[in-house]
């Protein structure tokens, strides 16, 4: 009958494979580490990495402690206060936060494209549903936003509202562009909700195209449609530089350099979150974390896959976290 493999009946069950869930951005790096981990630890079963998107992963991660819940959540943004509270509520008390690297939110166009140059302000004004709270966005062409830009229709392929990448777009670019208006800054203190809505809501009239969670599709669509621009992770830009050109933001191109130093406005940290309670119960979990630490350096295997290494001091902190298993303090989260 059932109950022989996973659930040991009254015993609550065990598991001999590490399980990680979460961000599709982190997914390729997590799988790479998983592979290295298996190769370096003979006899270990390969960890299972699920790509659910950051939010979905957090939801699963925070559901509880035990064999049926994942050990690790991958995230392309920091854990939210609400998610942390959810974890606490479900008994996931001690969470270890490890920043594994940095990713750039790249803007790209076909290399047959017009050669746009953008700023957060322009992007905000082109994409916001309701720029500065002054009524619906009526801009049609880029030159409606800024006369220096060519007269081609605005058409942006980007991540859907459910992904961490979209959260990053809102936080790193749109909000920044929005804050170019001092009134908005003031609004932030007055009415957080309205501020959020005004600054991060994206127009829905077809100028911004949600493209599912498939970045290769965006790449191909850009190739077919030279006037469109796409928003996705830096690694895709790097891999497809034969087809795509980078669009500089504030005059800064997304390169390994600029992203890793944080000079590029679209740079964002990548995290993994680990349950401390599982460290003792799941074989190889510590080894898996060590495999991350061994490969996240500037010449490590992860950068070969398109990840950008975190600055030296961040890496040091993360390595410390992996070693000491220091627990995340929820009070500083947003």
């Amino acid at each position, binding site marked *: 009958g059932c109950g022989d493999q996973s659930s040991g009946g009254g015993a609550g069950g065990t598991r001999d494979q590490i399980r990680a869930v979460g961000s599709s951005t982190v997914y390729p790096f997590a*799988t790479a580490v998983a592979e290295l981990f298996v190769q370096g630890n003979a006899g270990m079963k390969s*960890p299972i990495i699920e790509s659910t998107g950051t939010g979905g992963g957090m939801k699963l991660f925070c559901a509880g402690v035990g064999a049926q819940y994942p050990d690790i959540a991958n995230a392309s943004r920091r854990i939210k206060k609400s998610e942390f509270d959810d974890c606490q509520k479900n008994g996931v008390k001690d969470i270890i936060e490890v920043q594994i690297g940095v990713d750039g939110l790249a803007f790209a166009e076909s290399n047959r494209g017009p050669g746009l140059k953008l700023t957060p302000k322009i992007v905000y004004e082109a994409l916001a549903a309701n720029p500065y709270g002054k009524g619906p966005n009526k801009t049609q062409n880029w030159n409606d936003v800024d006369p220096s830009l060519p007269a081609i229709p605005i058409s942006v392929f980007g991540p859907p509202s459910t992904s961490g990448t979209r959260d990053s777009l809102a936080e790193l670019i749109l909000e920044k562009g929005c804050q170019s208006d001092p009134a908005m800054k003031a609004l932030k203190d007055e009415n957080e909700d309205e501020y959020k809505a005004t600054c991060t809501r994206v127009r829905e009239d077809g100028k911004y195209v949600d493209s599912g969670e*498939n*970045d290769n599709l965006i790449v191909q669509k850009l190739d077919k449609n030279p006037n469109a621009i796409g928003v996705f992770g830096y690694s895709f830009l790097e891999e497809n530089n034969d087809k795509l050109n980078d669009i500089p933001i504030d005059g800064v191109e997304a390169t390994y350099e600029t992203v890793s130093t944080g000079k590029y406005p679209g740079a964002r940290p990548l995290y993994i979150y680990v349950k401390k309670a599982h460290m003792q119960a799941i074989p190889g979990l510590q080894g898996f974390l060590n495999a991350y630490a061994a490969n996240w350096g500037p010449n490590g295997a992860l950068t070969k896959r398109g990840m950008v290494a975190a600055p030296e001091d961040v890496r040091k902190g993360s390595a410390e976290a992996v070693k000491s298993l220091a627990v995340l303090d929820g009070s500083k989260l947003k």
Partner: protein
Amino acid sequence: MTTKRLPTDWKSDVMRNRIARRYAAERRFRLIGLFAVLLSAAFLAFLLFTMLGNGLRGFTRTEIAVKIDFAASPLLLDPNAITDEALSNANLPMVTSDAVTKALGADADDWVSPTAWIVLRDRIKADPKILSRTETVTLPASTEIDRAAKGDGSPEAEATVDRLKGAGLLTTGFNFNFLTASDGTDPTQVGIWGAFKGSLLTMLVTLALSFPIGVATALYLEEYARKNWLTDIIEVSINNLAAVPSIIFGLLGLSIFLNFLHLPRSAALVGGMTLALMTMPVIVIAGRNAIKSVPPSIRDAALGIGASPVQVVFHHVLPLALPGILTGTIIGMARALGETAPLLMIGMRAFIATPPGGITDPATVLPVQIFLWSDEVSKGFVEKTSAAIIVLLIFLLAMNGLAIYLRNKFEKRW
């Protein structure tokens, strides 16, 4: 009734025109039919052709012959104590990359796959004596070289390929690894076996559940249930299940199989059960239609010589309805085989590098694998994606083959 009709005058112009028109309509109708078949077939041919065009390359891989002097290489290995552990600590990646640069030049490290050392590991494991020899080993080429060798790379890479080819070091061969390996992160090393096995197990579970239950339901509703408003409701709601978005079945699977029954996440068992929920209505609907079209006189004949209702059904109705039931099964299973959405909910959209050993082990399935690979960063995955699609279609063909054979066997006209 006084009007005496004479035999119709078929030679009159009116009648002639009429017949001509009817024949024209007949020809048109027939042509439209032919056109429909050809058009549908053309779509399929086009799809298959494109996929074969892109995918066949996925079944080959480029290899580079490298001469390695094992004796001289800095391997930390005792030929008499080759264990998995020792091998994983033997610093093989370094050794490989050294050997490659030594043999082919300074940039050659980028020409072979980053996981080429696995080949060395396997060789040593198979024959430890190799450690005291110099041996030519064929290592898988890196994605860049592989693509260039298949005529789709950067100019530099193509120049390298030409050079290596000239030296007779570069070969392209059938990629057996693709058929035997599982998911990975290096496109030159990935394989389809894990996902294939996952699909196989999942489909077995789906078939084992949905076919008997679907057929039984169809039989019960059509042959035994009393026809009243209740059966009407049941009929309509089962028809309706076919229109429920598949992801809702995923949710149901999540809440019942995972959260309530505590079955293992990502397992073929749960995937199969979830897909069975989705496939069942299709089988029920097709089954009922097929059962309906068995002429009542056959039932009368059997009942008339004293067959019990159960015998009537199993001896006569079911065999006669089987072709239709199998049609439903084929299209239902085909859909299940290609389905991804409900499997996301139960954790099958995952990186699973070991093939499942049984239906309770974590597994992924072909369409999910295709979906995951189609979103991979590395371009080397493009041809692997298409190759995986070809494998899926072959799977589909094989699966349908049996059902189609049975269907043709049972089909009767009366």
